[in-house]
């Protein structure tokens, strides 16, 4: 008895947690998206969830674990099938559930039960389908208990030093696929050709970052890095317009992420209003290149007798004022918040970002309000227009490369060491003679400069910009990609941008769930792997 009771209680607890997860996914309407495969995918999902939950099960080997998995799965199964069956009967008997719970449509419930939606609307649901669902999930519990074993074993990655060539080869294999797929004779479903190719391109860049980490430091890493650079340089010329456009956005976010990485990752200053500098860069370039869009600017220009229909400065000339304005913005935000730490800093910067956005919307004389600034000039080089997606991707690549280089040099400089010291312990850093004010302001200013550059490129790419392009979510995206990639790690930023800005383009169908997924990812990441996927070398 003494063993049976705790096992039962644990199984019950884990089953209920798995049920809550499944019920949540039902409420947000995932089954309808998965269609006919829903029961199978959900069973697999339940397996993983139960496996993770059972991972912690203490001192019960072999059969006990299997039994516990089965029981937990059965609990989840009975509860889920009761919920789904009950809801299906309610919907079938004419209760308008959808008026309250938006996603509880007949197809949603039908996908769970593996029947057609008509069965539910006509209220012909049999008990067999409901029981079948419960059994499925109970079986998933057994599978989960086997998975739990696997999860418990330490990850085999560090042991695979001699297997690292496989990881290093991965990006080049992916790149090979991307190139091969450019050929029309490559066997692929016609409708998904472009998306699959994009996926491989993203995979190539993402795994490139893993390869960089897997290579032995020294000559080997340098060789891998140069090979990867060559691969990156090839990429814009083999991708089509859509793929290049996605990659362009990904690398604009890499530029932003590298800047935020300096503020958050190196100096440990949590900035939630980072979009403000992105907006400063974008609007500054917009004012300079499309002054006719802003009522105030065109009025001033007319008074000065200058033509209002032309850009004041070209893209290249505008780089300097944009960078200066960005740095000034960084210092101006930095000065009042110097003495604040962690949480306070986060909220004040968040407020600052909101203030900038409110100004963009309400200062209609200057910013043209929600109607935005239109017809921003694209960069030109020797009379050649660089406004197309491919050249924009190349510009973003060059910008990211330059910023990454500067960031890398900074990280290994005296300033970089000062930032890291400030991040780890302000008092100790100060005691060691680090000038806190200077170190923090420098981090803010450099981070803001990079964001402003990203903003300028973004404005040139979009041609028309509106205040809603600079919402809080840009800040959150940038922060999320730094954290997911690994704070303070440059390859991490690239990987994070690929995962958070690139993959959603491939998974267009589940775009609705993008923010919820990120949000859950942030929480899970902090609990499971607070240092990120590719943590910084030096902690």
């Amino acid at each position, binding site marked *: 008895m003494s063993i049976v009771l705790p096992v039962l209680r644990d199984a019950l607890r884990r089953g209920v947690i798995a049920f809550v997860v499944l019920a*949540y996914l039902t*409420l*947000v*309407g995932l089954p309808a998206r998965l269609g006919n495969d829903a029961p199978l995918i959900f069973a697999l999902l339940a397996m993983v969830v139960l496996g993770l939950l059972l991972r912690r099960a203490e001192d019960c080997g072999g059969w006990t674990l299997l039994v516990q998995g089965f029981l937990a799965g059965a609990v989840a199964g009975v509860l889920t099938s009761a919920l789904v069956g009950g809801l299906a009967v309610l919907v079938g008997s004419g209760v308008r559930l959808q008026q*309250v*719970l*938006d*996603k509880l449509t007949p197809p949603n419930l039908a996908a769970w039960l593996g029947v057609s939606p008509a069965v539910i609307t006509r209220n012909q649901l049999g008990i067999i389908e409901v029981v079948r669902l419960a059994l499925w999930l109970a079986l998933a519990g057994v599978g989960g208990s086997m998975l739990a074993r696997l999860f418990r074993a330490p990850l085999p990655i560090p042991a695979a030093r001699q297997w690292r060539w496989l990881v290093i080869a991965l990006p080049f294999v992916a790149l090979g696929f991307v190139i091969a797929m450019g050929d029309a004779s490559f066997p692929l479903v016609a409708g998904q050709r472009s998306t699959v190719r994009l996926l491989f391109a993203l995979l190539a860049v993402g795994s490139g970052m893993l390869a960089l980490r897997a290579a032995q430091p020294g000559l080997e890493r340098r060789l891998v890095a140069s090979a990867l650079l060559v691969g990156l340089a090839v990429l814009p010329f083999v991708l089509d317009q859509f793929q290049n456009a996605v990659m362009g956005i990904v690398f604009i976010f890499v530029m932003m992420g590298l800047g935020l990485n300096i503020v*958050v990752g190196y100096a*440990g200053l*949590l900035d*939630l209003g980072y979009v403000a500098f992105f907006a400063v860069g974008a609007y500054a370039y917009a004012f300079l290149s499309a002054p006719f869009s802003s009522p105030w600017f065109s009025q001033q220009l007319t008074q000065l007798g200058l033509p209002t229909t032309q850009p004041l400065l070209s893209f290249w000339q505008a780089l300097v004022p944009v960078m200066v304005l960005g740095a000034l913005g960084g210092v101006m935000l930095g000065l*009042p*918040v*110097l*003495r*604040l*730490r*962690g*949480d*306070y800093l*986060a*909220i*004040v910067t*968040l*407020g*600052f970002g*909101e*203030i900038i956005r*409110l*100004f963009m*919307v*309400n200062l209609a004389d200057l910013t043209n309000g929600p109607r935005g600034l239109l017809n921003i000039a694209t960069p030109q080089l020797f009379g050649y227009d660089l406004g197309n997606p491919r050249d924009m991707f190349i510009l973003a690549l060059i910008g990211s490369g330059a910023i990454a280089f500067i960031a890398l040099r900074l990280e290994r400089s005296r300033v970089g060491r000062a930032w890291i010291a400030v991040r780890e312990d*302000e*008092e100790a850093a*100060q005691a060691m003679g680090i*000038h*806190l*004010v200077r170190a*923090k302001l420098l981090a803010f200013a450099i981070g803001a400069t990079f964001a402003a550059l990203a903003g300028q490129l973004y404005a040139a790419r979009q041609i028309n910009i509106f205040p809603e392009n600079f919402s809080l979510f840009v800040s*959150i995206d940038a*922060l999320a990609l730094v*954290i997911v990639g690994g704070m303070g790690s440059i390859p991490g930023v690239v990987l994070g941008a690929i995962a958070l800005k690139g993959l959603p383009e491939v998974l267009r169908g589940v775009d*609705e*769930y993008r*923010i*919820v997924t*990120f*949000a*859950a*990812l*942030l*929480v899970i990441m*902090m*609990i499971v792997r*607070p240092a990120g996927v590719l943590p910084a070398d030096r902690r």
Partner: protein
Amino acid sequence: MTTLIRASAAQQQGKPLRLAKRVLGAALIAAALVRAISVSAAESYPLSFWAAQTVNGLVLGGVYALVALGYTLVYGILLMINFAHGEVMMIGGVAGFFGLQLAAALGLLGGSSPAAALGLLLVLSFGMGVAALTGVTLERVAYRPLRNAPRLAPLISAIGASLFMQYSVLLIFGVRPMVYQRPPLIADGIRLGVVFIPLTGLIIFVTSLLLMGSLFVIVQRTKLGRAMRAVAADKEAAALMGVDVNQVIAFTFLLGSALAGAAGVMLGLHNGVIKFNSGFIPGLKAFTAAVLGGIGNIPGAMVGALVLGLAESLGPSALGIPAEYRDIIAFSVLVLVLVFRPSGLLGGGEVEKRA
């Protein structure tokens, strides 16, 4: 609960800088006052307008105070900002919306009988209950595993939780805003001279005062309250004295979230509508209120909230700026307080240092 703000960069600022800051602060306040006096001397608004705005400000202040207390309670104990607190409030408001619909469908809110008042009370308690449950779950899932993590981890987790709650509500209940139907019992108002006080406003203000009073009693007079204060002062020592720290923290979240839930229902009644993002900006403002009063300080949160509510409702007209800049006033207050007086209005003179 004492004020627990660390300030070390401040020490690096020399005397001239501090003096410059004082002068700057005084100049800012003087400029705002002069501007306010000159605008009100111009008499562009009638007295009844000012009175109505004052009432509105007090009502908003009452709502903010309830939310601010949650921030202050959690900060006092965990030294962390529960970034998702505004969303707990929003979920309380959503629960209140469905509670109100259900109560109306059951005929609990008809007429002006005591039964209708009881029905309203039930709706309020439902909102509080759901919010309390949300808050406790939030602590268990997103914060407890991170109690010994690096200091940015709980905050990032809180941002994740905040977004997760907002967008889950959007996904589950759809994009339709939830429109509160005011029950007939409180649809009207009273007229006092030039002032018209809507009954919802009066009820919100009185209820929030009552809730704050009961919170004060719980924290100061009960055994659990003493345990809370003990944990706030020193977690390890409290644990050694036999206080179940986990339980006390969960209870703190329960209290704070219940108050936020009440605020959510009230905000729904006051504004007439609740949406998935209704909690975000009010949450930020309530945090501002908590900081304004001195975070970790319970009476401070109430004072700060009332001051902020009044500043927000009277500020735009007094300073002669468009009402769209209302949010800017709140955020500027936050930045100014943090720069010039981080310990808040009631936070005591010296900033306490804590390792």
